[in-house]
């Protein structure tokens, strides 16, 4: 009896190996990169491209998008699929998810995990103010590959800090658009195989295997968690300044601005005035050079004395008075400290 079992085992092993051998190239991909896991992860980048090509563009202006209220109560999965809205960004046409941030959400960390399998949807995040003007962009490069572990899938993880208590532009942030760019669609992400993670945990020799690759796709799934603000105010503003730079390049300026009828009641003049992306936007008039220097000096002084609260208050005060250098002075001072 046991010996006959051996024969059966050997035969079944051989048969299975034989079957596998007849498969096409796609059979060579490891399970992590082709399972039906998270069914919204497309089996192939090409299929997702077809979906993108077939999708009708929903609107000409960002203000015409349908914004779903952001669910702040629980961690949720969101799909980017054939039913998603499509918009032509200046970085290419993309399917997207658009959210409106509830007014009572003052401070938060949004943790966005783009689930990676055979493919991955590489997110870029735009934040819009109440006038649907892009205030900052979280570039796709800030979404870092994070290996699977402890009930977490392979993923690209990025975080967005919201802090409306800081006032000025931060208080005015209202909308979130998550999409991808043509440039990202051409790439792929190398993952760490589960077998290699096993080796690390168990102190084994590295298995010496090629790692699975997730192709970047036009569709996919991401998870968003709305949690406590995990960092301090100055770090938020440091990020903010960085993310403001060139943020508007994702959206073609002219046609969108003229053809769209803004839903919010804001005079077009203000929108024009704030077109310069890097400059702080709220100053009514440029302040005197001397006053600006005075503020800068006081900010540097406070930072070097370790009084961050005072320094930050000075930045806000200076900006209200029209300073264009207070923020960079602050960031430089913190960096050099």
């Amino acid at each position: 009896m046991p010996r006959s079992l051996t024969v059966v085992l050997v035969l079944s092993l051989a048969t299975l190996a034989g079957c596998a051998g007849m498969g096409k190239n796609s059979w060579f991909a490891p399970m992590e990169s082709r399972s039906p896991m998270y069914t919204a992860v497309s089996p192939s980048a090409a299929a997702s491209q077809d979906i993108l090509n077939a999708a009708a563009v929903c609107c000409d202006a960002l203000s015409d998008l349908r914004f779903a209220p952001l669910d702040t109560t629980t961690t949720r999965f969101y799909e980017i699929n054939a039913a998603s809205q499509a918009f032509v960004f200046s970085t290419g046409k993309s399917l997207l998810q658009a959210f409106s941030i509830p007014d009572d959400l003052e401070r938060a960390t949004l943790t966005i995990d783009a689930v990676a399998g055979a493919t991955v949807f590489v997110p870029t995040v735009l934040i819009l103010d109440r006038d649907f003007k892009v205030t900052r962009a979280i570039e796709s490069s800030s979404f870092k590959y994070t290996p699977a572990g402890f009930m977490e899938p392979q993923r690209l993880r990025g975080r967005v800090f919201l802090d409306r208590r800081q006032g000025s532009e931060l208080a005015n942030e209202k909308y979130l658009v998550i999409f991808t760019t043509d440039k990202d669609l051409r790439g792929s992400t190398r993952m760490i195989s589960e077998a290699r993670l096993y080796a690390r945990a168990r102190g084994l020799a590295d298995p010496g295997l090629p790692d699975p690759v997730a192709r970047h796709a036009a569709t996919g799934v991401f998870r968003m968690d709305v949690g406590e603000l995990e960092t301090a105010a100055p770090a938020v503003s440091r990020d903010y300044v960085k993310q403001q730079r060139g943020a508007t390049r994702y959206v073609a300026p002219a046609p969108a601005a003229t053809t769209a009828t803004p839903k919010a009641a804001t005079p077009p003049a203000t929108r024009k005035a704030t077109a310069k992306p890097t400059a702080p936007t709220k100053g009514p008039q440029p302040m005197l050079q001397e006053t600006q220097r005075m503020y800068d000096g006081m900010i540097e002084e406070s930072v070097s004395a370790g009084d961050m609260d005072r320094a930050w208050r000075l930045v806000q005060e200076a900006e209200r008075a029209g300073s264009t250098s207070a923020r960079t002075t602050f960031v430089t001072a913190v960096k050099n400290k």
Partner: protein
Amino acid sequence: MKLRVLTTALAASLASGVVLAADAAKNYIPDFHGYLRSGIGATGGGGDQSCFQSNGADTKYRLGNECETYMEIVLGKSLWEQNGQSFYVDTRLAYKSAQQNDWSEDPGDGSGSNSDAISGDRAMTAHPYRDSVVSVREANAQFRGVISGQEKSNLWAGKRFYQRHDIHMADFYYWDLSGPGVGLEYWTLGPGDLSLAWVRNTDGPWVNGQGTEFYNDDIVRPNVINNVLSTRYANLTTNKDGSLELGVEYGTADLTNDQDSVTARVLASGEIERLEPFEYNNGWLFTAEHTQGNWFGGFNKFIAQYATGSMAATGNNNTHSSSNAGADFYGLDSAGDPTVLPALDYMWRVIDHGTIALGSRVEMMYAVWYESKTRNSATLNSGLAATGSGGEKNWFSIGIRPQYNWTDTMNTALEVGYDDVAFSNNYAGYGLSAADLADLPVGFDANALRSCATRDDHCVLTKVTLAQQWQAGPSIWARPVIRLFVTYADWNQGNVPQTPGIISAQDTSGVTFGAQVEAWW
């Protein structure tokens, strides 16, 4: 989660300078890795879960066939980094218990799991509240990037799991030098990476033909240290996604002067006893391993090993091997005098194992190997008569573990494992004599007591497990997993599985069921 709260709390409480405080807190969080398995199980005929492993087989197929709680906590941290070089400190604390009670302490006095008199599962279960052991298995520092421009190069020292190679489904560590040591690894030289190491392990006196009474005696140090010098040359590209690793290891006991010569001691009675030199022997281990990636969605490894003398001794771990292992078995010769089994002459082994993915829902682990060990016929210099000259043990094993994913997080796994260990020429020494057997109660099958090993027979065991699993992902390597399992095993007469005392010695099959969690991170 806790850490996050802590970071936030820290940041909040240090209102000013918060940036620095938050960053600083982050810097003190070590890398946390680890492993654990635990669960609850029962045997069909009553009692705790029995685990099924054939006599003569050094491993068992593990799905639904593990009876203990085992855990490793790994904390490591890069403590210094500069110009592509870094110092990494790594630690690994292991814990094992027979999972009999909430409270399972480590007796710490050698009375329970550490006992020399009883070992293995019996020791683990001897005392229901003192059935655990704790061990620091890794404590080392690694200077990574020690050779400039070579990020992988690594100078290390301390206790370490050294480049272990395993078959996961059988818990079979076929190439594993672990212990205290020092080495330089992954030094890129020519087409491959060279690793050199000196690793230590130590045997008790009983392994070397001496009794445990040496513990009561300070004249001669009882324990024998073994050194293994290892040279490995890895990552040789052989074909597309294929690579070769070659290894040569030399193991030898390093005896003290007294251990190596005739000495004497004074007994309590005043008599003088002559002490014979310790037995020991040396050995070589040669290994070649070919790894094929992109193999039907998984990988395949083919391994050939040849070992001589001391390096042939242990089946799944080539560390405790430099001395005369095997000499701990005492039988009786025809005159009723104790005899000792001679050491191993050589061992060879061929292994093929890996995983494959079949379609988008089925993934399978598989393993097959053949191992042959032969004893030599040398007479021991302690004067004891050797027995079982030229004895042979040939072990064939094959197993598969396919897993069908119903969803991304739920699957059904089947594991079938088969072991056939053939003993010949008195490899395992004498069993019961005809006179002993005559004393058996009427109707008692003699073969139930006569081990298949000592009657020079095959020891055969087949084990089948069906498990429903909830798993953190579709990969067969994804963990944690929680599984409900049923295991059936059958074996031939006299091959009582190695969890003794739960299943009757006369039975030749058994069923267990239970639940287990397995995790690594």
